[in-house]
């Protein structure tokens, strides 16, 4: 395992595109949270009736402990950026035919797939660290007195699991499609448009069957922040109650994705 990690690090550490995209992610996560924070700030600093009512209604979603939840929710919109890295890491191997060379040089096919799983884990870990940093900075700068810092910090685990699951879906698409641009197109179209349509249709006509769609399964690990939940308290409570079930579904789905990858790679011609 250490050898796989070391070898993957040799592939990544001098890969400029990897660090550029990680850099873009490092800007986008604080960026999106800063934008929503600014909107919130502007609304509350108006000295009028609406501002006072809004403040009374929603509290401060950027203060601890709710900051963990709010930042996780907004950051999760941007998982398609690290997904680009994951898709590039797998499709590069096909493009350069190094997926064959790694086997020729002495890895088993399972070791090769494990090395790719390590890549996805590494990217998920980097993204989670970034999320923790953004949550801490936003939480501390918005909290007053002695805040309840850690009670919602379990969103870190939910965010990490969601990221791992959704990046695994991106990996699977890259792994099966093999071509970077097609895989990216398929993932982004599905992530931004197609699944959202299916979920909406499912909610309206099919007893919310869309909750079992691949991305939606893990999307529901992080429901809308509490201040948005106040607009429809019943739905919000249902969403919170469903988190445990979705942890289970997400783990099962992620395991199935990797089982498919291992099985396909062990059987197919390279």
């Amino acid at each position, binding site marked *: 395992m250490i*050898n796989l990690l070391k070898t993957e690090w*040799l592939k990544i550490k001098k890969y400029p595109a990897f660090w550029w995209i990680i850099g873009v992610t490092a800007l986008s996560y604080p960026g999106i949270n800063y934008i929503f924070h600014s909107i919130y700030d502007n609304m509350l600093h108006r000295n009028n009736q609406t501002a006072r009512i809004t403040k009374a209604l929603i509290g401060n979603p950027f203060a601890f402990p709710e900051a963990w939840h709010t930042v996780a929710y907004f950051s999760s919109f941007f998982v398609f950026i690290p997904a680009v890295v994951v898709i590039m890491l797998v499709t590069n191997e096909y493009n350069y035919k190094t997926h064959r060379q790694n*086997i020729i040089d*002495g890895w088993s096919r399972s070791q090769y797939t494990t090395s790719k799983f390590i890549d996805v884990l590494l990217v998920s870990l980097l993204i989670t660290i970034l999320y923790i940093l953004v949550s801490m900075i936003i939480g501390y700068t918005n909290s007053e007195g002695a805040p309840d810092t850690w009670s919602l910090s379990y969103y870190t685990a939910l965010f990490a699991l969601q990221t791992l699951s959704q990046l695994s879906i991106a990996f699977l698409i890259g792994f099966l499609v093999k071509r970077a641009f097609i895989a990216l197109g398929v993932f982004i179209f599905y992530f931004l448009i197609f699944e959202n349509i299916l979920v909406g249709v499912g909610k309206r006509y099919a007893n919310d069957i869309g909750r079992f769609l691949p991305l939606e399964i893990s999307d529901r690990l992080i429901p809308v922040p509490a201040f948005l939940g106040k607009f429809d308290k019943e739905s919000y409570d249902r969403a919170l109650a469903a988190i445990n079930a979705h942890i289970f579904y997400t783990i099962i789905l992620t395991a199935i994705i990797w089982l498919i990858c291992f099985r396909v790679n062990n059987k197919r011609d390279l």
Partner: protein
Amino acid sequence: MASVLSLNQISKSYGPVKALKGVSFDVPEGAVFGILGPNGSGKTTLLSIILDVLKADHGSFFWLGNPGSPDQRKKIGSLLETPNFYHYLSAINNLKITQSISGRGTASDIDEVLKKVRLFERRKSRFNTFSLGMKQRLAIAAALMGDPKVLVFDEPTNGLDPVGIAEIRELIIELRNSGHTIIMASHLLDEVEKVCTHAAILRTGELLTTGEVEEILVDDDVVEISATDSARLFELVRQLSGNAVLDQKLNLVHITFPKGTAKLDEVNRFCFQNGIALNHLLLKKKRLEARFFELTGN
């Protein structure tokens, strides 16, 4: 002599196309074993199977008596089809990956193999800045890492200039002389003739023949003669050998003898004693290419 590699009835199809049809042969230890055949004969498919890049439909293969495994492959230096490296990494960083996966060699060996293939000066250049020949030399360097006793080369001189080709041939001969076993696919007969000790010839996935190069690619003696009346000459020499052919256009008769058995003085005497004076008598070697075309039916 022990077999480094044994193939047993290897078959492989791509849909309706049968790429290999029950191929079996053994590669003796210390041999430079050429797998020879025209394009599309199944050479690369065969090498891909023994390196676990492709799965055989039927049959089995054994490296030193054991079924193929990752640990076996780590001990084999291989170049398959095209040089496969990370385009954004330098030569040295690509070889670090080879070293990390295979466990062959050390950091100082990387410098050594780069010097051996004349890429040391460009060791810090990215792979995507290399010419085709340099890429090929880097792939050979990767195969040589840690001095493996068994090497697999698929068209090793592909993309090299004449000097590069000569250098790789020298290198292969040097490796052969130091006891390495080399399995090499090629469609270049000259290459096989110059460096290989053994060969297998494939045609459309079928093994035509295998054995020592001397036995397989025997280059027969051809005696070329002519006289004023070539038709009468042809009738006469047919009594001497059944392998006589009349070339009416050039007014020549060709007689084929097994390698090293043609005796010009005997042919000349025979004709003269039977009343024909030759005006042309020449010993020609049957070209290796012609022998190959005979075997492969091209």
